[in-house]
């Protein structure tokens, strides 16, 4: 049982890998990301994760051993910290939306958890409590 108060382990490779995403030609702008987020935030985390994992770009990355190696030894806290840092640097508006409500945060966390399980080939853990929270906050608007 890992200590939750200790800082999470972060593999140095993940910074280079996630930083190389910014060099892609298809790297989106913040406005486009916000538009997509406004469409996806009303969906369940499983559906959002399913849409992401079935995207061609995502599939081309998770099938490489480099991604698996980059996240080796990291738990959800470390992944969350790195992804949060990436979003906070490149899409600060999206980060404000995620932090604006609990339901947005739960959606964000659950999607990351599902994606991590998919990449590692693990089963998706049951998130009943978080799913309930997702249902409760459906219909709320984004507060900018």
């Amino acid at each position, binding site marked *: 049982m890992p200590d939750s108060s200790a800082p999470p382990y972060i593999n*140095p490779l*993940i*910074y*280079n*890998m*996630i*930083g*190389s*995403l*910014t*060099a892609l030609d298809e790297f989106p702008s913040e406005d486009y990301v916000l538009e997509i987020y406004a469409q996806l935030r009303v969906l369940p985390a499983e559906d959002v994760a399913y849409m992401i994992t079935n995207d061609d770009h995502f599939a081309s990355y998770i099938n490489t051993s480099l991604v698996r190696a980059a996240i080796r030894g990291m738990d*959800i*806290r470390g992944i*969350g*910290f*790195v992804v*949060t*840092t*990436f*979003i*906070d*640097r490149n899409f*600060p508006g999206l*980060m*404000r939306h*995620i*932090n604006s409500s609990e339901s947005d*945060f739960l959606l*964000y*966390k659950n999607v990351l958890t599902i994606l991590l399980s998919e990449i590692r080939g693990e089963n998706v853990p049951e998130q009943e409590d978080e799913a309930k929270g997702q249902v409760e906050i459906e219909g709320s608007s984004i507060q900018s």
Partner: protein
Amino acid sequence: MAKSDTESKEKDVSRSAAKEKKEESPIAIAAEALNAKIDLPEQINIIPTSPEEATRAVDDLLVQDIFEKIKFNRLKGALARSESFANTEIRNLEESAKKTQSAIPSPPSVMNMNPQNNSIPIGLGTGIIPPINSDRAASLKVALDSFTSDDARRKFIDEHPEYFSSVPINPGVPIPQQRFSSQNQPQMQQDPTTILADATKILMDHLKAGMDIQKAISPPAGINSGAPSTVEVVNTFKDINASTVTGFTNLVKDFQSQMKTVVDDLKSSNLELQKNVSKLQMDLIEKDKEYMKNRIDHLESALQRPPEFNISQLRSVINEANANGVPVSVDTEERERLRSDNARKDREQDHKFNMEQKKIDLELHREKRRGLVMNSAVKAAGGFLEGTVLKKHVLSTDGESVARRF
């Protein structure tokens, strides 16, 4: 009796004259025809002796044609004018006659049947009824006034019809009251001088129409002023004949000189052609002789050589043996070695060519790979830099809050 003898003699004379006319010589007939032609008008020469005469003849023909058309048109116009004038005169005369009849007073029964005629001045505008002379009317008035009774007046009128010579003497019909105005009165009058003037006018108009017709028939002065006399026609014909003879003589002379030149040229060219033909024939004979001599020499040499195998048959036999696995060769050792060397050199050249091609392909692939490596290296460098920046990135309050909640 004597009369019948005279008639029979005249008949004999006419028969003999006809017989003599029939038995005239062709020369006499031709001369007569020529004399007859002389009297004919001038004709256009069909074969003109010079272009100027031909042009002049065509111009004359065109002018004559145009003149004929003009003459015909003028004649038609004059005839139409004359006819219309005659019709107009006839119509006027008919109208005058009608009006003269209408000016005569009708019987009382007729007058009573048409009462409107009483109110209309009879003879108005016609000028047919001769008015009574003013002196005569005055004397008649004085005479009638001198009588006291109407019977006496009627008797006077019956006894003196000369006062009413211009009106029908009919005592039962009253003289119509003529109220002509001073302007209409001259038109109403038709005294002999007026009729004569009208007749003169009609005659003058007819003369004018006749002059127009004559003018239209007569040719213009510029073209043919009057009919030419026979002497002029004969002189013109003689001139034309002389110019024709002169032109024809000149033409014959020119033609003869041209023909002479052409014949001379043909003779010289024919002579030259004959020379060329004889020379070519000699060359051909020489070449034929040489070919025959060579052919004979070749045949003699072939007859002197020993008999040989059929080369094509021998080659087919060797090829068949090689195909069946039997190594047979008709080449000499030197030629065999030379051929194998050539084949080896060909293979070496092919190998070198293939190697060069592979080197080129390899270089191309290396270049592509270098490009990919550079691209990936750039991306990797960018990713590394971005990763370094991410490592040192300080989270915002929102990011820190989110990261802490994991």
